[in-house]
């Protein structure tokens, strides 16, 4: 393994020199890479095989890579030329996708005793990729840092929590924000079984990429400790929208959407009307912010619904019927723009305005490659 301290200095330097706001890599004009706007996600084909797929916004399949098992959350490098697709937990592979050549470049594998948790993010210079992992011997959440070019795992840090899931790069690029879902898993025989629901304590952490130090943290009040904080998106100013999955009993109507301010202060609850909370069936499968950071979206495959909120006021803006809908990504072409995918194979472009007017256009319907879209989407190009 490469010397840890040097690797980290590289990341920190990248953060200082090539400061890059989240999403800027997607909106910037690309000198190379696909000319058309694209989405990347995992899908199961009509043949039952799991794959990583890139389509353009006309729905044309540009890349179709069969994976060893279900992949999870894609991340795209700032220059838009590389995507990483880690396995769904408790998988140990991550596919490196070459978005110039639209081919599989390589596969990473976690060391023994570690597995991916499904999400990762690139460093600002694109040289490193930071993923959430689990240390399943000690039940600790971990971040692993990979050198994308050499494929080496160059460092790891603790996430200061159990069950880390989605991770994003903070503005400035020197730190990451991680949602520690709080759920302990990894029994040898039943690796996805939840082992600590009565005592789970999810939290949000901001962690320095220079030394792994916890720079900020927040958690929910004790009465909400069973709301697993799992999925996050970040506005250009660093405000984080957090979406949860309530592991508690049915009918308690626990809030599921929260805002973590950019200053790392306390989590603010988005108080949806009771019926809207109930329509989410205790389960947000993903979350996204539009390019302005003002409109938030979450999809509940269990409720068959995608819901849109005003992040600042917390107001409910509208909802769409989306059976098994889950994947959401920012559509950087327009304010209030999102891509929405579902397990029924449907991929739509959705636009929401501040009054809650919704427009929905088909990108593609089910086809042999994307018979079912898996949990998450990314957008680039």
């Amino acid at each position, binding site marked *: 393994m490469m010397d840890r301290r040097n690797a980290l200095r590289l990341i920190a330097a990248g953060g200082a020199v090539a400061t890059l706001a989240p999403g800027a890599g997607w909106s910037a004009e690309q000198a190379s890479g696909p000319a058309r706007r694209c989405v990347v996600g995992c899908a199961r084909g009509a043949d039952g095989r799991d794959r990583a797929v890139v389509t353009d916004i006309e729905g044309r399949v540009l890349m179709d890579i069969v994976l060893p098992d279900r992949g999870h959350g894609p991340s795209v490098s700032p220059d838009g030329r590389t995507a990483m697709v880690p396995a769904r937990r408790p998988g140990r592979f991550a596919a490196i996708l070459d978005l110039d050549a639209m081919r599989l470049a390589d596969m990473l594998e976690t060391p023994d005793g570690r597995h991916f948790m*499904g999400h990762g993010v690139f460093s600002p210079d694109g040289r490193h990729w930071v993923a959430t992992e689990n240390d399943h011997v000690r039940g600790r959440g971990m971040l692993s840092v990979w050198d994308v070019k050499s494929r080496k795992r160059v460092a790891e840090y603790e996430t200061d929590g159990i069950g880390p899931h989605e991770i994003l790069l903070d503005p400035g690029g020197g730190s990451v924000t991680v949602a520690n879902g709080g759920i302990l898993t990894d029994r040898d025989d039943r690796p996805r079984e939840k082992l600590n629901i009565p005592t789970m304590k999810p939290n949000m952490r901001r962690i320095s990429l220079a030394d792994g130090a916890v720079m900020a943290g927040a958690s929910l009040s004790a009465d909400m400790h069973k709301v697993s904080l799992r999925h996050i998106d970040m506005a250009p100013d660093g405000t984080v929208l957090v979406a949860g999955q309530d592991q508690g009993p049915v*009918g308690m109507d626990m809030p599921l959407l929260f805002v973590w301010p950019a200053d790392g202060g306390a989590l603010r609850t988005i108080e949806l009307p009771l019926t809207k909370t109930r329509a989410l069936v205790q389960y947000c499968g993903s979350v996204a912010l539009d390019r302005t950071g003002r409109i938030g979206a979450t999809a509940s495959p269990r409720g068959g619904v995608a819901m849109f909120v005003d992040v600042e006021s917390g107001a409910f803006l509208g909802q769409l019927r989306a059976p098994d809908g889950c994947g959401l990504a920012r559509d950087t072409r327009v304010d209030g723009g999102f891509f929405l995918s579902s397990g029924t194979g449907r991929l739509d472009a959705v636009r929401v305005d501040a009054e809650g007017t919704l427009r929905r256009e*088909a990108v593609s*319907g089910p086809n042999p490659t994307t*018979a079912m*879209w898996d949990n998450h989407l990314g957008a680039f190009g």
Partner: protein
Amino acid sequence: MAVGFVESALDRVIIPDYERFADAAEGFATTAAGGCADIETLRAGFHDAMDAWQAVQAVRFGPVEREERHFRIQFWPDKRNLTARHLGQFIQDADESALAPETLAAYSIAVQGFPALERLLFEDAEALTAGNAEADFRCRLVAAIARNIANIAAAIVAEWPEDRRLMTAPGPDNSAYRDGSEALRAIHGVMSGGLDAVVMLKLEPVLGDGPEGVRARLAENWRSARSLRNIALNLRAAERLFRADGAADYSFDGFLRASELGRLADRIGGGLGDAADRAHDIGPDFETAFAAEGGYTGVLLLRDQVGGARGAVSRDLAAALGLTLGFNALDGD
């Protein structure tokens, strides 16, 4: 093919069931407008309306999904006791103007539907006939809620033709139902979702950890002593939808038989019918069921029977129909 299933399910079962619900709700509203002197007649009207509602309770698309209608008709489960809190406040305020239909319809969902009615008619019935000012207000609230439910039901029936048109005309310009499988999935979801609710909301919480740990007050409608009657009605409704009320063509039952899956058809249709019979026989409520010899075991058996039909519907029937279900919902991350 999909459109044929959807038409037959809507025309033979779902829309007629909503019409029956609207009729029963209208009948109850008329009764309730006549005052509260005869509590037994009021209760009978409540039961008729609730019987009809239970047949369509599992439908979560179409007109009922707009304007919070489902929740306004029945907000349940209610673990935070919103109904008690909001109803208590409402009665304490005794605001006459809040009884007007359009005002009540905009009030808390917890006071404008069946759960509030059930408390007024069954739990606190003495307060309804005490002959004082509060009793008078309570009585007029019963009439107002009954009228509200009837209005919602009538609106649902009035709007169904447009929803029917959307569901049976899938296409690129139809953003809700782009192809036939999306409407078919919704129809299938009435069965699978309804059976999920029977097992997960109506049976499992009540069964608790064992015979000593039953929690009969987590049941739906325990106050009106009809929890198992509801389940029997839910199961009958699922069975009728499965058979499209006896249609040979374009019923799920007929489709499975034509596909040489007669045993699966028997397992679903027969299983639902047997489970409905069992729920009926051990009912009408859990208190009755648990008081009988072997009562807990009887409810366990019911749970297993419904569970078997539920698995056959959500897994095997979906597969036979070519529907992929719950890739994201069932084992999420």
